[in-house]
């Protein structure tokens, strides 16, 4: 059987989700953001919520998320995505409202909003991309940067005595009564991509069912900021990031209300 016999519409098993438009993504080659964008587009498409979804994009590399996924978007001030999502969801409870934030947005400048939105139990879904670095501004040290990790602003590695300890914010959120589903996933292998998709789907369904706040942390790579090839960055993430940020569900309760 020749390739041309296989490449026919009836044999198609995987294609780009229609909600992901044809704009060329500005992300670096191999960036985890692209995979998560694709998963969000797939999940919204499968849920049939394209006309009823409002995303809140952050400040950071994902600031242009509204250019790539064909749904309604809001652009929040730095770190304030969960506050905007709170207002949006309260005014329009029938919409699916989610925020898409990086670690510089969610766990650094927006820590206050993040924690209080989760504590209030707003019915929103939070997609939190943690790559342990400020990627957009050129790879500076973030609160989530690992001890010993070299960045532009700690070229000899992060030191606990000088820079403090890396912030693992997701377990903190799991402690709060307002959250119903808190999980930590990654997108570096085909199996982990499938798991992350299931987690995003669950978070979106929880949001529509009014169960409380769902947080999906995606441990990601920033190969440009880490100064590695995409393949090497995935390996580095497995070896170093997963020790501090272990994968798995941290909380999954039926309902908080």
């Amino acid at each position, binding site marked *: *059987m020749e*390739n041309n*016999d*296989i*490449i*026919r519409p009836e*044999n*198609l*098993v*995987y*294609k*780009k*989700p229609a909600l*992901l438009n*044809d704009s*060329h*993504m500005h*992300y*670096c*080659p*191999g*960036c*985890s*953001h*692209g*995979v998560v964008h*694709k998963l969000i587009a797939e999940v919204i498409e499968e849920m049939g919520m394209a006309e009823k979804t409002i995303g809140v994009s952050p400040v950071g590399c994902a600031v242009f998320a509204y250019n790539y996924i064909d749904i309604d978007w809001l652009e929040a001030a730095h770190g304030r995505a969960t506050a905007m999502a709170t207002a949006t969801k309260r005014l329009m409870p029938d919409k699916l409202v989610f925020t898409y934030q990086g670690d510089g947005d969610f766990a650094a400048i927006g820590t206050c909003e993040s924690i209080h939105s989760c504590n209030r139990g707003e019915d929103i879904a939070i997609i939190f991309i943690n790559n342990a670095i400020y990627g957009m501004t050129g790879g500076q040290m973030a609160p989530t940067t690992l001890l010993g990790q070299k960045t532009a602003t700690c070229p000899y590695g992060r030191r606990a005595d000088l820079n403090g300890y890396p912030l693992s914010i997701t377990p903190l959120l799991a402690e709060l009564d307002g959250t119903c589903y808190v999980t930590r996933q990654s*997108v*570096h*292998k*085909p199996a982990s*991509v*499938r798991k992350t998709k299931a987690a995003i789907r669950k978070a979106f369904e929880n949001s529509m069912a009014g169960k409380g706040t769902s947080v999906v942390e995606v441990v990601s790579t920033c190969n440009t900021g880490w100064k590695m*090839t*995409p*393949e090497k960055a*995935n390996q580095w993430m497995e070896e170093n990031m997963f020790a501090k940020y272990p994968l798995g569900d941290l909380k999954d309760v039926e309902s908080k209300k």
Partner: protein
Amino acid sequence: MAKVRGAVTVNTERCKGCNLCVVACPSKVLDLQQKEVNNRGYHFAYMAQPDKCIGCQSCSLVCPDACIEVYRVIEK
């Protein structure tokens, strides 16, 4: 015995040559172009060994730019 055959198409203009699909492929089907580049100057992915493809979708799942379409057929 029925044999599963697969094939992929790569949107070469969208591909950024990150090599993640090449690493993810369990049958070592894909590779990056050594000399050819697309309009943006990236060495895009292509099927170097099309006979080995099993249509498992691993490449398309890890592709950050969603430029891979997967086709699968069961050969009888």
